[in-house]
């Protein structure tokens, strides 16, 4: 009991601390970039007191949407990862488990293959992600034998593999000088071209997915105990599970459509959050979302500054995240309590 209260206070403290740090970091990130922009000039642009030359475009049309996008993408992927890990009671699960990334990848690659405009590529990515998970849910519902969770995961593996195969087929058929590089870059993830207009449809969808999760966070906690125990506590596991899957899928598909396939965040950040606030979903969800936002902000700031060309996010998230995660594991704090 004492421990729980301690954790409760630590959780609230951590959340406050993380939010404050995040706001500071986001502001700092706005000041970093290849375009030389001083603090004073940045402040005058941000407060709308005029600017010189390109400063306004750089700050308001390029960096601001990009910083916002990195926060959104990181928070969304980490929150979705936390959902799936709790739902499947397995720490090795990532948001890709039900094929959403593979489906989104296929949709976007198809858009590139057909030489469609960027908006259409994003829409196809979103639709592909949703479609893949719907197919998985349909297959899982049709198969009525065995362990429901196992069937769901296996269906996700199968649909993901099929979407991956279709993506590879499109890569073989694509123009190697024109479309293939675009496909490769998209599948590695990037926020290089993100604009405010891209976030206008994505942010509400992420919010629409996050709000039910936040409201239901204490019930979802019960899911981690298993179906029988959940029923004993008056929670209908089947329906709740469906809601969680729908919300997490919406969240993931909408950010993957904007940023491309960014791996690793949804897998590792929930772990780190769990090390800080413990396994309770009620605290895990906000902690994972905040940490994910911060992590993505840091990684994307690196991606746009360490080289004269962009470094794909999918590469950096792993290169930065993997050693850090190993270090955390080596310290032996509670990984899955």
């Amino acid at each position: 009991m004492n421990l729980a209260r301690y954790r409760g206070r630590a959780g609230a403290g951590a959340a406050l601390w993380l939010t404050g740090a995040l706001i500071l970091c986001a502001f700092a990130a706005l000041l970093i970039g290849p375009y030389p922009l001083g603090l004073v000039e940045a402040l005058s642009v941000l407060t709308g007191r005029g600017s010189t030359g390109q400063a306004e475009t750089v700050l308001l049309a390029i960096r601001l949407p990009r910083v916002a996008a990195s926060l959104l993408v990181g928070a969304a992927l980490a929150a979705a990862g936390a959902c799936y890990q709790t739902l499947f009671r397995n720490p090795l699960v990532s948001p890709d488990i039900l094929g959403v990334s593979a489906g989104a990848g296929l949709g976007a690659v198809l858009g590139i293959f057909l030489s469609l405009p960027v908006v259409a590529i994003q829409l196809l990515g979103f639709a592909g992600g949703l479609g893949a998970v719907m197919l998985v849910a349909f297959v899982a519902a049709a198969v009525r034998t065995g362990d429901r969770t196992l069937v769901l995961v296996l269906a996700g593996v199968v649909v993901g593999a099929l979407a991956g195969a279709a993506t590879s087929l499109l890569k073989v058929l694509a123009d190697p000088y024109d479309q293939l590089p675009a496909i490769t870059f998209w599948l590695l993830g990037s926020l290089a071209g993100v604009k405010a207009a891209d976030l206008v449809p994505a942010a509400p969808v992420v919010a629409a997915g996050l709000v039910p999760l936040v409201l239901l966070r204490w019930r979802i906690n019960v899911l981690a105990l298993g179906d029988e125990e959940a029923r004993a506590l008056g929670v209908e596991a089947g329906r709740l599970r469906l809601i969680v899957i729908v919300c997490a899928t919406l969240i993931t598909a909408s950010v993957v459509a904007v940023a491309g396939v960014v791996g690793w965040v949804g897998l590792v950040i929930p772990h780190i959050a769990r090390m800080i606030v413990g396994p309770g979903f009620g605290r895990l969800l906000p902690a994972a979302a905040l940490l994910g936002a911060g992590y993505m902000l840091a990684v994307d700031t690196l991606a746009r500054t360490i080289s004269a060309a962009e470094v794909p996010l999918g590469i950096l998230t792993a290169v930065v995240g993997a050693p850090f995660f190993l270090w955390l594991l080596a310290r032996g704090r509670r990984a899955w309590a």
Partner: protein
Amino acid sequence: MKRLLRSALAVVPVVFGAPGEARTVEDSAGRVVEIPDRAARVFAAGPPASILIYALKPEALLGWPRALRDYEKPYIAAPWRELPETGRLTGRGGDANLERVLALKPDLIVDFGSVRDTYIDLANRVQEQTGIPYLLVNGRFAETTASLRLLGEALGVPDRGEALAADVEATFAQLEAALGSVPAKRRPRVYLARGPDGLETGLKGSINTEIIELAGGRNVADAPGRHGLVRASPEQVIVADPDTIVTWDRTFYDRVWRDPLWQGIAAVRRSRVYLSPTAPFGWIDRPPSINRMMGLKWLAGLFYPHLWPGDLRGEAHAFYKLWYHVDLGEAELDRLLERAGGRAP
């Protein structure tokens, strides 16, 4: 035993072939290859090779690695427009089946491009497996004249190879004479925009962008020690502030004039964004083959308009006639050059 058998088989054609029917050439990788005296059926290992063979000896070309699209066909001479699709043998996504290659009964396989070890090994393997001589020709821009002469010789059309090489030499010499004295500071700062959002580009020193430097421009995408295609962020483009943007992507070209992110960039403000023609092959890349010679003239004309009084239309007509065996009509020229000259300011 197996090896013995294979080398015995390899000797067979030499033993039974009539004397004088075969000869040897040394390809760009230094491989000594025994080739038929008159190569009549030549398989192109990839798109760059198919263009080189088509320019030198179209009647020997067995097919296009990718069938020509409808909008490309008018720019290829009639008999060779409908050649079948044969697939790619090398490079990214090689998809030609060796049995299908053999079914076409080629007497020579040609690859035009990288002559690095992987490609040498691949050439040796295919040659050993199929018994068909496999020539590797260097695809770097600076090697164009040597490559034309080498393949002209190998295909039994040395005069044609010499004529085309002379044309390239003349262009190179003309550029050198005109641009040699232009100081680096006065050279245009060029950004090659690829992809529908224009944020994909080729770094300085990569095969996709070497044409910019040859035409007297400076590539603003320069990351020392790195080559190849990369993504850039809009901020990086703004900082680089190119005064000329070249693209072949129609979507990007239409979008750049309206997109607020690009409005402050010098090239957009001065209406110096140019859409490269892409038929039958790209002018600046896609694929990197001798089709870039036309792009070289075009870019040099855009970069230094006062140095080239000759008109693009005439140049294009002459180039397509000499290299692609077509006499373009007014309508085809109109369609080809529709946006190549940039938008009126």
